[in-house]
């Protein structure tokens, strides 16, 4: 089922949580809403679910206007960060709940409900645990039960609110791969919220980066990482360094020296240069480069991260060097970013 969010605005007691957000989610897509806390990602998810009502705008499931429907009628599967399992019910009863509360002909027989529950339990790889209570399961197992419960009603969309947020790193990675597999097998249109960029980039077909109630960028992991369209996305996704620069006649300058980057289309004036710390070339003699004094050098896993002080203003930037690179021992290092982007100074 494709989902369209059209010009949605949401205010909580006059405080805007979402400003005029529009988003098209394709059928069968696995999409991530990524952003820092307070960016409105959970609000957007809850609006799609019907747990909140938009102040303005509409949400369509296919051609139907879902914003006029109640939560119960929307038929969405929602998975909460803290599982929200019914603790007085067994695992099987939890999964079957959505079918059991149906009325009349829509309600399958008790036997059928049980069969479905066991089938789903098998899908989430928890066979044999149907008689347990949620309190007897680990966090990862509980979240799998929550997902099975959400899928039992054959939802039009599957919505997951920081589904792995409460789990430890290892279980998280495991469940991430597992969720991808489940998605590929069942093909539900799935939207999940996360503040973990690694999770979003690894798992999702497309990533929606949000900040302060607005969508900053929508794209594949490659789009988002390689061509960020705003300083926010540049600094939020992956590592980034930035330097205040000046553009004159299509050349980028720091203080009174050109740094060997040409930007023929950039308007002249103040700007901010963004680049990835690992995406730099070290140069020897400095005619057209960024040169700085080494202020600190730290070993980070497979690389060495060097902090440089640039120019008279002592602007600090970070670059990454191979561990055994001789430059790390020197007191002055010159480099030129391989890939970079200019944004107007704010």
């Amino acid at each position: 089922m494709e989902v369209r969010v059209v010009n949605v605005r949401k205010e909580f007691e006059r405080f805007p949580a979402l400003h005029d957000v529009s988003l098209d989610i394709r059928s069968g897509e696995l999409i991530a809403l990524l952003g820092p806390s307070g960016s409105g990602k959970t609000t957007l998810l809850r609006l799609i679910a019907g747990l909140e009502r938009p102040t303005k705008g509409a949400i369509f499931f296919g051609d139907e206007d879902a914003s006029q429907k109640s939560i119960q009628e929307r038929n969405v599967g929602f998975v909460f960060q803290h599982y929200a399992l019914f603790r007085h019910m067994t695992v099987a009863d939890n999964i079957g709940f959505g079918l059991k509360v149906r009325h009349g002909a829509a309600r399958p027989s008790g036997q059928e409900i049980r069969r479905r529950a066991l089938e789903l339990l098998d899908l989430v790889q928890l066979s044999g645990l149907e008689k347990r209570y949620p309190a007897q399961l680990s966090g990862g197992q509980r979240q799998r039960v929550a997902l099975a419960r959400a899928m039992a009603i054959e939802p039009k969309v599957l919505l997951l609110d920081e589904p792995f947020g409460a789990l430890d790193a290892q279980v998280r990675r495991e469940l991430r791969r597992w969720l991808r597999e489940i998605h590929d097998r069942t093909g539900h249109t799935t939207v999940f919220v996360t503040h973990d960029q690694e999770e979003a980039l690894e798992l999702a077909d497309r990533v929606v980066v949000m900040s302060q109630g607005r969508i900053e960028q929508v794209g594949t992991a490659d789009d988002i990482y390689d061509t960020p369209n705003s300083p926010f996305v540049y600094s939020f996704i992956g590592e980034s360094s930035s330097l205040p620069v000046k553009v004159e006649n299509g050349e980028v300058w720091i203080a009174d020296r050109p740094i060997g980057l040409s930007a023929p289309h950039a308007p002249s004036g103040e700007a901010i240069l963004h680049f990835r710390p690992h995406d730099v070339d070290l140069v020897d003699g400095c005619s057209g480069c960024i040169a700085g004094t080494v202020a600190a050098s730290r070993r980070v896993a497979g690389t060495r991260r060097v902090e440089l002080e640039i120019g008279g203003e002592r602007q600090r930037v970070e670059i990454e060097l191979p561990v055994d690179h001789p430059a790390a021992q020197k007191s002055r290092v010159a480099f030129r970013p391989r890939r970079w982007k200019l944004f107007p100074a704010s």
Partner: protein
Amino acid sequence: MTTAPVKAGWRFKQPSVIPGFGLTLGFSLAYLTLIILIPLSGLVWRSAALGWADFWAIAVDRRTLNALKISFGTALLAAVVNVVFGTIVAWVLVRYRFPGRRIADAMVDLPFALPTAVAGIALTTLYAPNGWIGQLLMPLGLKVAYTPIGIVVALVFIGLPFVVRTVQPIMEEIDKEVEEAAATLGASRFQIITRVLFPGLAPAIITGFSLAFARGVGEYGSVIFIAGNLPFKSEIAPLLIVIRLEEYNYEAATAIAAIMLALSFVMLLVVNLVQTWSRKRYG
């Protein structure tokens, strides 16, 4: 969070960071003996002096039976009423924010603090045939004061805080997300209440019920003012005990008390068993 396998049998002493098992258990036993066990066994011993035949005669005396019936019946009814309305009051206090909520919350405790005689007199004044509420009910043919209905009214008043205060903290722990989860799964509001919320609250509600009931059985001060105290009609067992005491008939008084004790103990035990069962089920 898997449960560790429990070894057969139970260990007498649990290891803990705070020592003092021996000391606290010893204190508890000594304290319970002094405060509860000695007076109660004195009661049983005293009534045993009566001899089985005399004891039985008092036990099956019509006046005694009626008094017991009224005491336990009204306490049961009042506890049921309190469970229903106390749960609603707790719900309102927990779930909604409205002006005066804290005052309403504090008001719930008043029956705890008020001398029961004051409560009894106040209720009698209100519900007497010429009282504020009584005169409204009179044309409907409903006589509250000086009837068993009056006793129920007094016991409802006395027992309310027990239900509210036991249910409230459990209600506060209910995660709103659980209700939202049920709603997204298609459960109607009614189904969310009956299938999701209520089972979680059941143990607390049962506790509140048993507390309110136990309090109602033993209540004396407020009831004697509103009951009218007509033998066979609105005379409660505690009052009958006092009457016997005033007649210096200590044996009869202790016999009735011992019967009340046994009945209360059995009923509370049953409630406790129900509760253990429901806790196991709804954990």
